[in-house]
Each structure stands twice: as C-alpha cells, then as structure tokens.
C-alpha cells in the first residue's frame, strides 16, 4: 500500500481487538481501507475474520485499540449466507428496499449494474446461487455505499459463477469507487482482484499483495495441504519474521499473477 498515492481513507483500525467472555477473539488488527481499494481477509474458521468485519461495520465495538470511521460512512453489506424461508414472500424488487426506501429507477439501475434486470419480479427463493448473490450485490449497492463489506461472496456458487462474481466485484469497485472489504476462505481466486490480503489467525499473520501472502510460510502453514499446489510457485523474496513467527512480506513484493491451470481463465474485465 505504501507505493500508492495518498487516498481517502474510509476506515482505520489501529491495534484493534475484541475480547468476549474473557477470551480474546481477535487482537492487534491494523487495517486501513481507502476508497477504491479492495482488502481481503483470509484465515481459517475461528480466526477472527467475521469479528474483524464486525468491527469495521460497527456492529462490534473494539475492546482494545481504536477504530476510526469516516463520519457518515454508508456501509453496504452482502452476508455470507442468507436463506429466506419459503413462508416469507419476497420478490427481488421488494428485497431491494429491505433497509431503505428507493425509487423504481434506482432499483432498475442497481439490478442492471449486476446484470439482473430480468429478475425484478422473481421470488428470491427461486433464484440460483449465482443469481441470488448478484441480487444481494445490487441490494448492497443501491445504498451507494462508501464501503462494501462482502462476507464470503462466492460461497455456493460454481466456478464459472465465481469468476463472473469476482469480475463484478472489480467492476463495482471501478464504477462506484467504493472501498471493499472481502472475507474469503480461499486465496487463489481472489488474488488478482485484491490490493491487500490480510491473513488472520486471531491476529494478523501476514499481509501484503496477494502474491506476497501466497508465498509466505505463515500462509502455507495456516492453509496446509490445500495450498501445497501454490507452493510450487513460491519464489525467494525478502521477508522478515516477527516475534510470533508471522512473516511480513516485503512491501515491493513480486507481482506475479499466478494462473491456476485447472481453472484456466483470467479474462480481463470488460
């Protein structure tokens, strides 16, 4: 991030942490999200990704450190999973105004931005995973958020849908200039779209550009077997070890875009 020009910071967490019932859920989080920036949190279950995201949205107050949010920050939120019971009749149109009032023109524009105009009258229970996720993106975007928080945005979506959704996320970033905080359990697909990856395990284990994080021993240790394929791409680079064994990658880390041949596509965004 140091190589970027000064930007409008939306939110800054400094040494922030949450304690609950005498247990530390997460601590020592330093994190800044600027306008137009995509920050991705990765880590195993229970590593504090959701807790960190909740500090960002303001749902949880930090019990350690500070959170500085730009005043009047509008947040759009795409939840990890949203199962809407059949008993609740909800069309896409109605879902769009769930947390605020918007005109039909605004609804149309938001749905068009995600390519879901034709779903306007559809019942949400009928949508496929990918369609529903698009609609949820549109719902979050209609608020014209300064900050978009995406919790595991591609869960339950097949691979081609996944690629399309990541394209969409980048498009949203490019057109709205919103800051984006993304939570993800996997690293490989998000890499190309993300400015900063923060790897959590109760604290920040490693951070940096996707390629830096991907090759850090700490990341490989956390993600174990599944990431061994990635290890093949590992390059030597400068890094320093912190007291806790975490690795901090060199800031000017290599920007290799690692293609995943089993997936095979990194088509540029239109």
């Amino acid at each position, binding site marked *: 991030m140091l190589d970027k020009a000064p930007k409008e910071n939306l939110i800054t967490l400094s040494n922030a942490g949450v304690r609950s019932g005498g247990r530390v859920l997460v601590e020592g989080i330093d994190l800044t999200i600027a306008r137009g920036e995509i920050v991705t949190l990765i880590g195993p279950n229970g590593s504090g990704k959701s807790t960190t995201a909740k500090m960002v949205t303001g749902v949880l107050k930090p019990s350690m450190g500070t959170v500085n949010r730009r005043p009047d920050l509008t*947040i759009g939120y795409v*939840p990890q999973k949203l199962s809407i019971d059949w008993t609740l*009749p909800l*069309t896409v149109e109605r879902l769009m105004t769930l*947390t605020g*009032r918007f005109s039909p023109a605004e609804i149309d524009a938001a749905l068009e931005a995600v390519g879901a105009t034709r779903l306007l009258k*559809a019942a949400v229970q009928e949508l496929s995973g990918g369609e529903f996720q698009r609609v949820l993106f549109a719902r979050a975007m209609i608020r014209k958020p300064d900050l978009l*928080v995406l919790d595991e945005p591609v869960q339950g979506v097949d691979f081609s849908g996944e690629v399309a959704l990541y394209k969409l996320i980048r498009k949203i970033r490019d057109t709205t200039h919103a800051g984006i905080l993304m939570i993800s359990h996997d690293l490989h697909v998000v890499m190309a779209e993300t400015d900063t990856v923060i790897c959590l395990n109760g604290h920040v284990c490693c951070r940096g550009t996707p390629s830096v994080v991907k090759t850090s021993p700490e990341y490989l240790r956390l993600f174990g077997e599944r990431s061994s394929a990635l290890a093949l791409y590992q390059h030597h680079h400068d890094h320093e070890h912190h007291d806790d064994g975490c690795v901090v990658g060199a800031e000017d880390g290599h920007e290799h875009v690692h293609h995943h041949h089993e997936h095979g596509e990194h088509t540029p965004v239109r």
Partner: protein
Amino acid sequence: MAMSTCITITSMGSTPLFGDFFSRALIAGLGLAAVTGPLGCFVVWRRMAYFGDTMAHSALLGVALSILLSVNVTLGVFAVAALVAGALLLLQRQNTLSTDALLGILSHSSLAVGLVIVGFLTQVRIDLMGFLFGDILAVSVEDIAIIYGGGTAILAILVLNWRPLLAATVSPELAEAEGLRPEVSRIILMVLMASVIAIAMKLVGVLLITSLLIIPAATARRLSATPEMMALVAAVLGGLSVVGGLFGSRTWDTASGPSIVVMALALFLVSLAVPTSRLFGRRERNGA
C-alpha cells in the same frame, strides 16, 4: 369491513350501538383479526409459533396472579407473558438446553402453575373454561374498547417499524451491518405478542390464541407475493374466520372460539388448492 356486518345485526338488538352479544362478538373478533393477521405473519416468518404458544399458555398464570394481587387482568396477563418471553431470552443465552426444550418447560410449567394457583383462589369463582377456550360471546363494550385501543396501538407500532422489523426478520446480521437494530426489533415483536395475548385471551382463550396468529398468516402465504400483501391478506382471512366461525357457531350451536379456529382451518385447507407458482414469483426468462 366491520360496519356492514354489524348494521344488519344491530338492527335485531334492543340498543342501537353494539346492542346484542352477537354483534359485540363480531366487532371484537374483527378488531382482533386485524391485529393477529399482520403480527401472525412475523410469527410464521420467524418460526415463533411454539414461542407464541408458550407466551399464551403463561396467560393463565397472568390471570391467576392478577386476581391474587388484585391488579387489572389484562395488564397482569401482558406482564407475565412479557416476563416469560424475557426469561426465555435469558435462558437461550445460557446455551445449555435447546430452545425447543426450554419452550416446553416454560409453556407447560406456566400453565400448570397457573392452574394450581387458580385452585387456591377459593374466594373468587373463575370460569376456567372461559380462560382456556375463550368466551367471545361474553365480550363487553369495555372489552371492545380495549381491543380497538390496544389493537390500534399494536398496528401503529407495526406500521411505523415495518422496515426494520422485516429487515431483522430476513437477516439480523445484514440489518445490523447496515445500521439497524435487530435486537430492538426482536423485543418490539415480543412486546407486541404479549399485548395481543393479553387482549385476545378473553375472546379465544389461552389455548387457541396462537391459532389466530398462525393459521390466517399461513393461509395468506399462498395468496401473496410480498410481505405487505401477506399481512393484509392475513388480516382479511382472520376476519373471514371470525365471521364464518361466529355464524357457524350460532347456526349449529357450537363453541364460538373453537368454531372460529375451525373456520380458519377450513380456509387454510382451501388455500392448499391454489397453485402458488402459477400466480406469483414468475421470472421472465426470455429477457436473458
């Protein structure tokens, strides 16, 4: 909708306004249905049916305690129902027994404790059947005032908080992240349910209150495309159940409260024949 029905009925009575017991029952029942319809939708959406039942069962304990302490019965029932709801919330946080088991404990023990206390109240004669199954034909003008006053307040709170209540129902997490307070929504709904139970108990009794919340809402689901429409349809269906049930009970000399529930059930069964997918939620595939 109440007026057209009551005009024809009141003409039979001796006094012009709310003259006979039958028209009073109709007016009271329609007023109640207008509230239980929309509120019942939330009960169905949030899967609170058993929860509502538990609160309703505690109403008898409320009655017994009110008589014991000589306080207003409606207020007493409201307070006990709200307390039981609060107790459940606290017990749920303990993460020990499942909600299901907790509800079973609260539901039946509050009913049993209520019945035991009623047994001790020898100085007052309590119409136990009236409290358990309701006595809608015995409603007074004062009861009607309570139903319409309380009902208007409940509906006003529902309408004013509709968006946050619905958002919290769809996803508490999402509502919270976007600046709403789902925990407050939950408390509002519980208070409203306690209120409805307090005003409905006399009409349909503690054992049948939840049926007026759940059955019309469940029936309305198949006939509605949006939450707002479902709330309205549920109110209308509840009204139809009241009218049909009361006329049925007069015709066949059946118990009035249960007759209303049977009518609601009949409407539900009829609604099962409606092919919802044909009516709503169709998408335009050809535009893709």
